[in-house]
């Protein structure tokens, strides 16, 4: 019980810390690729503190609750994603094996994909509480983009779940540690998942939901002050959750938290390189792209998995 409480407190804290680090790192990486110096890596911390002290307007209870639910939902999702460690033999002390997956036995991957909805839906509702048409346009784009990447993503996780014959994420991780990583055993699904990764975390070329130059940051248009601070953190945590899920599904999780985070960092750096060089696409192109290559690859993987079973 005590172990579980430690884990439950620890994993969101790790997620928060890594989220802020990733945000800072992202600006550095992009700046370096653009041959700029870029802001210091702790810039997001400064920004968040500054935003917390600024007085941002509010449009009412739904407007505020949307933000709170979004961040809370993302933090809860973290509890269901294994953050490294090997599954301890029954009776052994789990923390000694570095296992950090406090609730991943409850409901498995299906719960994770549903919990990942909390963030976008809450932000959409909060943004809808204002009367800003830009926010509505952004939300409409977000819904469509979500549909665009969810179809291949669902095929990907179904292929993985069918391959390992379980819906438990913890078991998928431990099976990979026993045999081969997901990249080797379900390579097409891994490739498909990597192709839709930018869309899932909302970076270029799929940053059309925020799109500051077109629709004034879309759903975030009305948010400022402490709300924007929390939403920035939410974006970081969401980024972390998606990449952590990728690492758990295809890169064998981690033997302990450190190796896990190193893998997360690796995937993140590659994703940021894509982010730094590509321009933004339109929503139609995003739909078309996600439903051709990633969808085709994931579908092929699923056929292969079903046939080879």
């Amino acid at each position, binding site marked *: 019980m005590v172990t579980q409480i430690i884990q*439950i407190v620890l994993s*969101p804290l790790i997620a928060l810390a890594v989220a802020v680090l990733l945000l800072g790192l992202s600006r550095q990486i992009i700046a370096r690729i653009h041959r700029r110096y870029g802001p210091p890596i702790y810039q997001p911390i400064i920004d968040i503190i500054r935003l*917390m*002290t600024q*007085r*941002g*307007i*509010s*449009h*009412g209870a*739904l407007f505020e609750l949307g*933000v*709170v*639910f979004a961040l*809370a*939902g993302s933090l*809860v999702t973290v509890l269901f994603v294994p953050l490294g460690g090997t599954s301890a033999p029954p009776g052994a002390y789990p923390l000694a094996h570095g296992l950090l997956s406090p*609730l991943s036995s409850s*409901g*498995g991957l*299906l*719960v994770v994909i*549903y*919990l990942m*909805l*909390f963030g976008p*839906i809450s932000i*959409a*509702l909060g943004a*809808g*509480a*204002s*009367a*800003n*048409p830009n926010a*509505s346009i952004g*939300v*409409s784009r977000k*819904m*469509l983009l*979500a*549909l665009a990447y*969810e*179809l291949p993503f*669902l*095929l990907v996780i*179904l*292929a993985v779940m*069918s391959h390992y014959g*379980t*819906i*438990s994420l913890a078991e998928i991780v431990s099976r990979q540690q026993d045999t081969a990583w997901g990249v080797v055993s379900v390579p097409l699904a891994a490739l498909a998942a990597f192709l839709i990764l930018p869309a899932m975390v909302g970076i270029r070329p799929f940053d059309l939901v925020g799109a500051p130059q077109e629709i*004034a940051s879309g759903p975030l248009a009305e948010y400022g002050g*402490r*709300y924007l*601070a*929390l939403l920035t953190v939410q974006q970081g945590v969401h980024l972390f959750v998606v990449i952590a899920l990728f690492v758990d599904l295809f890169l064998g999780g981690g033997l302990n938290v450190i190796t896990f985070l190193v893998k997360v960092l690796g995937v993140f750096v590659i994703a940021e390189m894509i982010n730094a060089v590509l321009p933004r696409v339109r929503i*139609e192109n995003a*739909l078309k792209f996600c439903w051709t290559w990633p969808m085709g690859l994931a579908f092929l993987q*699923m056929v292969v998995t079903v046939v080879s079973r």
Partner: protein
Amino acid sequence: MLPVAILVVAFASAALVYPAGKVHGRLRDSLAVLSTLLLVGLIGLGYGAWREVVYVPDFLGVQLVLRLNPLAWFFAITVAVVVSLSTIFSLSYVRHKESADFHYAATLAVEGAMLGIVLAGDLLTFFIFWELMSWSAYLLISCNRGRALDAGLKYIIMSLVGSCAMLIGLLAVYSSLHVLSIPLVAERMQTASPGFVLLVVLTFGLGFGIKSAMVPLHTWLPDAHSEAASPFSAVLSGVLIKMGIYGFVLLMYGLVGLRLLLGLGFGWLTFSHVLCWLGAITVVIPAFIAVLQTDAKRLLAWSSIGQIGYIILGIGFGTSLAFAGGVFHALNHALCKSLLFLAVGAVEHHTGGVRDLDRLGGLAKRMPVTFACALIAGLGLVGVPLTGGFMPKWLIYRTLIEEGSPFLAFAALLGTWGAILYVYKLLHNIFLGQLPEEHRAVPRAPASMCIPIAVLGLAILLFGVAPGIPLRAVQSIGEVFGLAQLKVTLWGLASDAGALNLLNICLAVAVAFAAVFLVMRLGAKGPRVSQEDSYAAGSAVPVGRYHYTVDFYNPLCRMISPYLKDRVDRFYSWLAARGGEIADLTRRMYTGYAGTYVFYIVSFAALLIFLQLVWRIW
């Protein structure tokens, strides 16, 4: 005597409520509400009971029986609760309408008929109540005149086709098994030939498929649901189409039995397979057709078809997990969909009949209770954790994945993502964003509308956090049919592989929410400004006209709409038109001239003489 008492109360109040309305409106209202609440109480008393009452000992050699068992109880309580809430909602919805007396009487008659269906202990009683339900629902659907008449006609014609098929099945059962009582039929069915079993399954299945609006038998539903009065749409979508589901459960698990059913078919093409794939199609295509709709009630109607697909998928797959998921989802859909129809009804009532999603907006502040509950119901349809929709959908997905049908699972998940799109479109276009000028003066909804909506909303949340309550009832149904037992706890499932504990999720969300909320309180507090005081990069946003609703999902709609034409509906219409032409040709025989008729008689006599001379038949 409980089953008899229930039916007597239902039909007596249906008969009394009409004359009561002629005396005084209040008398009618209180009679209707009290009798529906009394029915909820009476059925509640029957929890866990097994009763059997012979109410007609000998009707042309058949014993007519009513019986109460966990299966009947589960559907009966759903019917009673939804109808009673819909009746309370009707109080202010139909008060000033001419047809109010008729509305209450017909609604109570539909309730009585539905209760009769689930309480029927033999197939003849079942069929009689089935017909009563079809016809009284027809009267209610076409009650609004105009387009509702066409919708009602479409409904009743399709229902009649289903009823005829069922009648053939009924006669086949009686002529070869010589019994109609459900347990006896089930017993003799086990030794019947496979061809006969298939005939029974297909004939009854056609009737149930039409009533539950399974693709490709769904075409009556979008018209009927959107044209009926909103409180009755809630009953239609919430429980009436579930009678088809009840029929399927009774047929597949009660009459034929799972063992026989899974082997039914030709080689790999089994009945269960076909039903599952029909379920999957029913999940996916209607969900995306719903995304294209601009009429709020039509959107909900298509969504109903999509959600029925999950139930069919669950009960068609035939494992105990999937069965539990399917039946649980029947309850969940009844709650969510009747809430959404009532919410749209409240909006429609207060905006003067507007249900066009392009003309509404920003009503959340005017109707906070309606919005909050519609949100809960919408999330319940999607199956978000902590709403009643999560557990059944989780059960269905999990079975499909673990039993090795990932393509069916993909269809099920795809439908869910369609549901996210249409649920958000519905909520956003009605309740969020800018309030159009014409709706500035919308009053708050009265208590008689808010209470049923709030009760349903709370029930969805309760079943989301403590799914054990309905799951135990579902499990006792499984027990009747001899399905394997699940390890149900109050908060979810306990099993070695893949437990689910929703209390954990609930607590985690609550703690995380509290923590984030506290952190937010630490930050500097800004002023609350009006909704219209918004940022538009330097230019002012015009107020009252810039609600982004028309073509909300334009890029997607352009992509998918060419593929989502309702070809089945067109085919049926074509069939109906051809039928009309044949009937028209027949009509031309009646020219009105006596000479023509004499000619018919003479030529018929000549034909008879000719036949007799040539073949000597007589």
